[in-house]
């Protein structure tokens, strides 16, 4: 069934097909080409929403993205529901389900409307003035009520079922807006040989061409011109055309973000298609042809359903074949309204009255209206409107005289002139100037890389807009080829127009300025009276322009009122800042594919699959997955860790250390370089030997550590912590490239070149010796801190004799692709020796037993080498290294600095919590340090902890307290070395 307000012919809808959809539970129908607003209007449904604050009934105001009122929730499943969509932008499709928002229990009867009755109590900023007593009242009493009242739609509660995509694109010329100006610009730029991208937020190209009757001022057939231009564009292979794509943000250097709505308009989209796609465009030149938005008039009762922008009514008529009413009153301050009046008149609608606030209406359009006998009244404004859920009539009043006349109507159209859509221009940091004759802010000029054309710069005549667009396109294309022919220039200038900006609301009754946020003339006046004179203050105090339409229809009116109230020029009052996005953008679109395994790369070692099979529990360290422990059947973490530790101490354990950062430092000056970067001495390090390296930041604090082996006089294999690898390499590069470019050294990350299998324990040597060819692993031949290259199982090997456990240990580096097989082979070989894989947790326990620090756990970016008991690492006699000078500052020598110590609880079963604070019995409130690591040690048969304690080294044996959540524990300070203090096992 076609809606009763549908015209018989015309419009761009496909009348041969019917689409059924639901709004607030009721079934309606429309046609392909309709949006939700046009389809509902075709059924005479005007009431579509409720306002934010007063819950006033609201109808459709506009016909596009400027719509402030008709906001709906679309989607029947929570996983596909979207709140706050503009009915004017929702294309209908079969089975579309939409519902109204911010009302209870129903749209036509909403209890929240009580706010409207009480509105005198709720002027702008009322909440700053009350709800303060009692002091707890805000949080517990008032805020919950206010929160429930506020908010428009309902957020979805189920995870989004849709997919989003992103794309970077480059072009020579990006044209935003495909009205006459944009189409002409794109065609001209394409003819100039440029790579062109043309986008428009609407479902079809054409902009205002689709909304206005057939011929232009100069007699050009609009639709024919549009079709011909589009055909040319479609045939050019250097042109990309994007409908349903909004340019929402312009950033530095012509970086423009577009969002393309791919599937929302389809009933059954292909499942693989993304719902929306983000286009991140880098354009050498941009042409903005974004048109202009009509301004509402400000008068009492200007917000009832059935009050609409004049141009919108024309769009509904010509584009959608919908009559938005039968009997019409027009309120205007601009000539453009007369064109609309004539259109509607020709379409058979009754024009009951035209109220022009201006003292005269002299343009050709007004003359035509007069000639057609339309009831035109100048010097007349709307004093009131009538009706509740739909307008029933309006009271017209003569300016100044008070003479009134009530006119019945079911549609009231407003035309307060046009506001050029300069949002993107302003985002691009273009400067605006106020044009008095247009009553509008216009672009001040082009920025060299960005131009404006058409209605967006105040050129409203279609033929001129076309010419203007063509010029802009030609100039843009030419600029992308600076070496080419002489650069063309723009010649068309902006004409005057007779629009009058309504500075004054002609009467003091409640007139709405920002419809969605219910900001009235009274609110704006109140704000100014209370001293909020800057427009930015007015905005924030009244919330004008802060709604989901960002004031597209209201900002200029609000500004005019403020200017009037302050008796200032519009230009002096100035605009609030335009910010991205032009229209709201889905979070999912901005997040794109970055979800699940694409949220962040998952870095896995070559041994990962083996560990996974073995049931390892992994932990995240940066992007890496590391095996934390390997529970056997039904083992708890504690049991698994105890078993793994035991194995290392008594037999041997195998550990995947592949994540360790590795940097190959090569070149004749490699040793000098390392000596400057690390606190240690490297010049004297013999080939075949390795050394513990400690790196500081220039501020003197420990940044990273690792083992550094010398493979050749000019070649070092440097290891870093897992998390520190990128930071260390970047810092080394920085010093090398910018401080010491004379050094002949090159740095290469080899973290991923090598899989690292660490074998630790008294049987380690026995297990691997048979594999290692060409290296004598005997203690004397290959002592602690030796390094060598050789082969294992026929593949290259770098082997370090190092230990982070206190046992005799070897780190076997093999090319990563072989890592898994080498690990397998060693595991197999080791079975008879009880070789046990162990994870990071056991590694932590074992190293803590030895008092070895973990950078980032014992140190926290505020520890010096001395604090950590690592002063010994500092190379004697070195005059300089990164961080050295800072160590001489007063604070670094402060005796109360925290120092690394061991702690033993009086009760050996108690494992302190990491992070627990330490106090003295004398002063139980002042922390003197904290626990950095705490474990139950199977080796010791008791708990142990490492801690950073103020003046800790001087406190050996002292009893201190560790207050934990349950109770306070007594601890004794001990050396940070619980196991094999002489290192006999290490060197054995």
């Amino acid at each position: 069934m076609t809606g009763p307000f549908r015209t018989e012919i015309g419009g761009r809808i496909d009348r041969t097909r019917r689409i059924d959809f639901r709004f607030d539970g009721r079934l309606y129908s429309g046609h392909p080409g309709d949006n939700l607003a046009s389809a509902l209007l075709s059924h005479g449904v005007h009431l579509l929403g409720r306002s934010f604050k007063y819950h006033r009934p609201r109808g459709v105001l506009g016909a596009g993205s400027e719509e402030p009122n008709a906001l709906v929730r679309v989607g029947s499943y929570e996983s596909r529901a979207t709140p706050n969509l503009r009915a004017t932008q929702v294309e209908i499709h079969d089975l579309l389900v939409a519902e109204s928002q911010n009302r209870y229990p129903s749209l036509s009867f909403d209890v929240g409307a009580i706010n409207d009755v009480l509105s005198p109590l709720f002027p702008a900023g009322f909440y700053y003035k009350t709800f303060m007593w009692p002091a707890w009242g805000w949080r517990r009493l008032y805020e919950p009520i206010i929160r429930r009242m506020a908010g428009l739609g309902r957020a979805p509660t189920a995870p989004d079922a849709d997919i989003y995509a992103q794309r970077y694109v480059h072009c020579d010329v990006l044209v935003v807006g495909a009205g006459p100006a944009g189409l002409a610009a794109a065609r001209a730029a394409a003819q100039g040989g440029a790579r062109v991208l043309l986008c428009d937020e609407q479902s079809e190209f054409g902009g205002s061409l689709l909304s206005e009757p057939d011929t232009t001022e100069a007699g050009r057939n609009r639709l024919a011109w549009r079709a011909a231009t589009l055909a040319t564009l479609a045939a050019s292979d250097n042109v990309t055309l994007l409908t349903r794509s909004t340019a929402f943000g312009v950033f530095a250097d012509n970086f423009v973000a577009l969002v393309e709505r791919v599937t929302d308009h389809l009933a059954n989209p292909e499942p693989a298609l993304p719902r929306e796609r983000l286009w991140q465009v880098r354009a050498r030149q941009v042409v903005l042809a974004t048109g202009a938005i009509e301004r509402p008039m400000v008068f009492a009762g200007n917000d009832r359903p059935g009050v609409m922008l004049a141009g919108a009514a024309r769009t509904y008529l010509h584009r959608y074949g919908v009559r938005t009413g039968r009997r019409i009153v027009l309120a205007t301050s601009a000539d453009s309204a007369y064109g609309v009046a004539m259109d509607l008149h020709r379409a058979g609608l009754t024009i009951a009255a035209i109220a022009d606030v201006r003292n005269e209406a002299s343009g050709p359009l007004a003359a035509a209206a007069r000639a057609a006998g339309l009831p035109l009244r100048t010097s007349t404004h709307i004093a009131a409107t009538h009706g509740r859920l739909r307008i029933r009539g309006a009271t017209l009043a003569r300016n100044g005289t008070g003479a009134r006349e009530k006119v019945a109507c079911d549609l009231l159209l407003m035309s307060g002139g046009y506001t050029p859509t300069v949002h993107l221009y302003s985002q691009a940091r273009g400067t605006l100037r106020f044009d008095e004759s247009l009553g509008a802010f216009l672009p001040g000029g082009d920025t060299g890389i960005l131009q404006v054309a058409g209605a967006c710069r105040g050129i409203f005549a279609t033929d001129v807009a076309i010419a203007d667009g063509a010029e802009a396109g030609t100039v843009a294309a030419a600029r992308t080829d600076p070496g080419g022919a002489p650069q063309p220039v723009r010649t068309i200038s902006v004409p005057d127009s007779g629009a009058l900006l309504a500075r004054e609301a002609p009467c003091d009754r409640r007139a709405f300025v920002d419809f969605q946020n219910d900001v009235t003339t009274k609110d704006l006046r109140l704000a100014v009276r209370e001293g909020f004179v800057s427009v930015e203050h007015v905005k924030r105090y009244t919330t004008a322009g802060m709604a989901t339409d960002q004031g597209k229809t209201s900002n200029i009116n609000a500004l005019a009122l403020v200017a009037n109230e302050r008796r200032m020029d519009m230009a002096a009052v100035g605009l609030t800042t335009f910010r991205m996005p032009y229209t709201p953008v889905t979070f999912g679109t901005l997040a794109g594919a970055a979800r699940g395994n694409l949220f962040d790369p998952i870095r896995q070692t070559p041994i990962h699959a083996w560990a996974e099979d073995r049931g390892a529990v992994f932990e995240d360290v940066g992007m890496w997955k590391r095996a934390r422990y390997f529970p056997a059947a039904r083992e708890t973490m504690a049991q698994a860790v105890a078993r793994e530790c035991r194995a290392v101490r008594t037999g041997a354990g195998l550990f995947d250390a592949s994540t360790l950062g590795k940097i190959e430092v090569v070149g004749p000056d490699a040793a000098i370089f390392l000596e400057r970067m690390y606190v240690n001495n490297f010049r004297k390090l013999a080939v075949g030997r390795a050394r513990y390296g400690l790196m500081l930041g220039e501020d003197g604090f420990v940044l990273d550590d690792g083992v550094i082996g010398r493979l050749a006089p000019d070649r070092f294999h440097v290891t870093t912590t897992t998390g520190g690898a990128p930071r260390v390499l970047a810092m080394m590069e920085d010093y090398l490239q910018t401080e010491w470019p004379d050094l002949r050294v090159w740095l290469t990350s080899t973290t991923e070149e090598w899989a690292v299998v660490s074998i630790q324990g008294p049987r380690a040597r026995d297990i691997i010796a048979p594999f290692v060819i060409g290296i004598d692993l005997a203690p004397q031949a290959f002592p602690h801190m030796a390094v060598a290259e050789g082969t294992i199982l026929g593949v290259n090997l770098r082997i370090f004799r190092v230990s982070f456990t206190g046992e005799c240990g070897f780190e076997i580096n093999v090319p990563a692709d072989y890592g898994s097989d080498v690990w397998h082979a060693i595991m197999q070989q080791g079975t008879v020796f009880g070789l046990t894989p162990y994870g990071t947790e056991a590694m932590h326990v074992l190293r803590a037993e030895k008092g070895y620090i973990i950078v980032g756990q014992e140190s926290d970016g505020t520890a010096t080498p001395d604090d950590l008991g690592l002063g010994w690492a500092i190379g004697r006699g070195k005059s300089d290294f990164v961080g050295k000078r800072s160590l001489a500052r007063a604070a670094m020598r402060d005796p109360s600095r925290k120092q690394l110590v061991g702690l033993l609880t009086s009760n050996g079963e108690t494992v302190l919590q990491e992070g627990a604070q330490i106090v003295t019995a004398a002063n139980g409130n002042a922390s003197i340090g904290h626990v950095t690591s705490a474990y139950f040690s199977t080796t010791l048969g008791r708990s142990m902890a490492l801690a950073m304690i103020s003046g800790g080294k001087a406190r050996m044996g002292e009893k201190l307290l560790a207050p934990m959540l349950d109770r306070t524990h007594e601890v004794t300070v001990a050396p940070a070395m619980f196991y094999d203090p002489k290192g006999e096992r290490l060197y054995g």
Partner: protein
Amino acid sequence: MAEQPVRQSALGAARATQGPHAAACLRALPAASRFSFRGSPPEAETAGVAFGVPFSLQSCRAHQTEDRAALWLGPDEWLLLAPEDAARAVQAALIRALGERPYALIGIAHRNTALEISGPRATMVLNAGCPLDLHTSRFPVGMCTRTILGKAEIILWRTASEVFHIDVWRTFAPYVWDFLIEARARL
């Protein structure tokens, strides 16, 4: 005693093969030998002769022969690609040619892994995560550079008008693969 280990690609079997695809095909490239060569232009010139492929001194350009390639990555950095079994020969040749002169040669055959994307819409798939202009006028055949793909760093090298070689650190390879497959599905 265990057997000789075999190379296991970072991409794994699941990601090694992909049937033909109208928009873009993805395949893992066979294992290769790879070196990072670091040094100044004079050393680079000598090395190029020894390697058999001159090192480009023009930025972001690769030179190649039948089975070897040298990719400019930085003013003192080239990535050398050669067949898997050529590793020792390459190394020996360069060491011999350069003698005591300052340079660095680091084997990175296992650090990186390579895949190839080819087809009429390969650039569009790449541009899902790569912010560069891949139009042939801006990224011609023979151009190579390190860049970004989503959250991974890659080396991108256009080997033919519709074919790109991607070199990537091994742990990022599965991500890159999955990213491209996802992007291709959403064209």
